[in-house]
């Protein structure tokens, strides 16, 4: 059975006084298997961010369900939500979202502290992870003292230190230069090889070409999907580009 199942997701934004209605998601269905590395692509306004917010339980859909490990995320009561988010999901954001008030170490510890993990256990989890992410030298620095790439690595550490079932990434390379992007994507690949399930929303063809599968969203629906299969990323890159061109030129639909 799939680890994550998204069924007939629909989201309509209504202006406050019942004015205009905007349909951000019309009918989104897809599923993600355990250990998969999936990218979601689409133009601005295609509903990518809305989708991710709903998957992250930050927003409620108008209709449809999101089943994570057999549980409907959209029906989790408000008071359990935060706990659910921090124990089952990991987040990597475009803007890093690290807190300037904390050193990198404390930023990474944040979800564990919120969960009430003992200090020794936090240290144990961090020691291996920091080395793997190449930030063990930087742990005592503050976010404003390190580069964007280093910040994003710390953000990844924060996302995976809780050992989440699903890692959600929202344009993770969006604010990075190309070298930092490459090394971050490489890192995602390594995490995925270790069994981490990853769902990434991105604009970047290069980022998407690292994934095993790419879903294309257009006008609030899954329009198309590509599997990488045995392709090398460079080859996959070309296929993705072609697909995007086709979507942009309004070509026919085949899925």
């Amino acid at each position, binding site marked *: 059975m799939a680890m994550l199942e998204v069924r007939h997701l629909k989201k309509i934004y209504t202006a406050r006084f019942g004015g205009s209605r905007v349909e951000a998601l019309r009918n989104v269905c897809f599923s993600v298997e355990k250990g998969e590395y999936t990218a979601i692509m689409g133009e601005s306004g295609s509903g990518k961010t809305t989708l991710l917010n709903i998957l992250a339980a930050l927003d409620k859909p108008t209709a449809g369900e999101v089943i994570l490990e057999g549980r409907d995320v959209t029906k989790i009561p408000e*008071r359990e*939500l935060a706990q659910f988010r921090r124990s089952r999901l990991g987040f990597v954001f475009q803007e890093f979202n690290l807190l*300037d008030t904390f050193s990198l170490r404390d930023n990474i*510890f944040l979800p564990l502290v919120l969960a*009430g993990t003992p*200090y020794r256990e*936090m240290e144990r989890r961090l020691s291996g992870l920091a080395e793997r992410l190449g930030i063990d030298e930087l742990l005592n620095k503050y976010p404003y003292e390190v580069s964007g790439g280093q910040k994003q690595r710390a953000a990844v550490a924060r996302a995976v230190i809780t050992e989440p079932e699903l890692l959600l990434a929202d344009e993770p390379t969006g604010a990075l230069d190309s070298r930092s992007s490459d090394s971050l994507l490489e890192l995602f690949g390594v995490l995925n090889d270790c069994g981490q399930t990853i769902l990434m929303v991105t604009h970047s063809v290069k980022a998407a070409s690292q994934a095993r599968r790419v879903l294309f969203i257009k006008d609030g629906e899954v329009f198309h999907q590509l599997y990488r299969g045995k392709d090398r990323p460079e080859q996959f890159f070309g296929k993705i580009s072609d697909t995007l061109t086709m979507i942009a030129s309004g070509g026919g639909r085949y899925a």
Partner: protein
Amino acid sequence: MRRGLLFYPKMAAANIQKNGRMYLPYILTCVVTAAMYLMISALAENPGLSQVLGSDTVSYTLGLASGVTALFAAVFLFYTNSFLLKRRKKEFALYNILGMEKRHLCRVLFCETVDVAFITLAAGLLAGFLLNRLLFLLILKILGVQGPLSAVVPGRAVFNTCVLFLVIFLFIFLNSVRQISFKSPAELMREERAGEREPKTRRLLALLGLLLLGAGYYMAVTIKNPVAAVAMFFAAVLLVILGTYCLFTAGSIALLKLLRRKKGYYYQSNHFVSVSGMLYRMKQNAVGLANICVLSTMVLVMLSSCFCLYGGIKDIIALRHPRQIMISAGEPADGEEAIIHERADALLSENGLTASEPLSYHYLSFAAVKRENSLELGSTESIMDMNRLAQVYVLTLEDYNRVTGEDASLKDGEILLWEKGGIPSSVTLSGREYAVKDEAEDILEEIGISFGGAENLLAVVKDEAVLNEWDSLQAAAYGENASARSYVYGFDTDAGPEKEQSLREALYHSLAANPTDGGAGLSLTVECRADGELSSKSLFGGLFFIGIFLGLLFVMATVLIIYYKQISEGYEDKERYEILKKVGMSGREVRRSIHSQILTVFFLPLLGAVLHTAFAFPFVTRVLTAFGMTNVRLFAACTAGTIGVFALFYLLVYRLTARAYYRIVR
């Protein structure tokens, strides 16, 4: 390039509007501060003030209070403005990059400052006028009396306010220019986040703060003499205020860093976010907290002593007027005592009254510096001497025995002595040694010649010859400033207050008027308790009024600072809490963490204020004795009550502003 004449003013106005969210609390702060200063200044310049107490003490103190308020206004406005400026540096950098020169920026800044100054003065003066009216109405209603003070705002107060605030704004403008013109756009861009760096621990400053505070506390606790206490009061207050500022700025950071090092404490969900949050903004926070602490202390000390004085009026009157009628004559001539008694008896029987509880005695009083077991006459120079200054009251054995009803006896060279904290075995006065035969009863308050004011000593000498001898000794030592011997005669009657007052007038006429008018032509004073009650009530009513007025004003300032802090920090924290929520903090956890943070930040100053008040307690007790208030228990009760009510009020303000804060970050 030529621009229209109104280009910069328009741009300035637009800037203020655009940054309304930040500017509104700032302008509000300016307006309220201006209104506050106007009110204090108006009170200090109030023409009715000289009637209160009939001396310059009150207006001097109020002048000082308005000086402190001016200083406070300057510090506070600078602090709020620097905060504002920091947040706008990016905006200025952008203008700079987009092609405005530094001098154009300065022009915009100038126009903005003029706008704010104009709004501040216009709204501040108006608000000051109205609030002044309101406060007067309110307090007079509470007191239920029509005091000598009325709600006028003298032109001089308006002038002072305008000058002060224009000067403050000028300096604020110059400071902004300094901050902007010497930096490149890139530096300015970076600087918006620069303040968010973790503050360094400044050990030296923390140590200095501890020392200053310690010195202030030490003075408050060790200076026993009321004369010295009054003289050193402001020095001690200054030390404590400076110490508070140093400690809050440096000490709080040191404390928070210590907390952070304790892993078991720090890595708990409710401490984690709050400790780091506080540490992060302590630099800007500390001044605000120190302000709150100092203001709260002022409110507490002022209100508690005022309530105490007002509540202790009865005690004070009883001390000043041990009998209904008190006649005291300085340097009585031979036979003068007999005339006083005769005329008093005659007047009483004329009015169908009889004297009861008669009290009569001669006494001599002079100041002396007390060492081990000698009394030194002469002028005092050092503060240490001032701390040893004692007022010596001398009675003859005959008078003493009559007043106390005892039957003590003395040989040549022997005296009875009373002083606080036990008596020595002998006393030397100008080289002559007197053996202290026994401890005298403490009758000074009972017979109404002293009600505190200095460390008192009562000496009972063998007879009039010794009294005369002591008199000539002090007369020789003090020359022109020597004090005179006095004769006191007091008695009670069963007359009501009005009859008592007319009796006093008749007595005074009969004794002091010229012989041609049927008087005895003596130089003396006649006091009655009914008059004393009236004048005390008006004096203490006036003081009480001023105390409450200033107290309410300072409370207002405290609320303002608290509110400003909450609002400005709310906007700052909004982003942080959004991130925290995304990472998996629930609404409840957010609220709990906010609670824990605000609670610590808020109750630190209150704690500091209570501590200050506790240390000020012995000090203020001594100052109060100068007003004739010696009831320490009453003062303790007033202080405890004031602290309790203030803490409740503080809690209320905290809850209201915490809600405002929460609404912003949610």
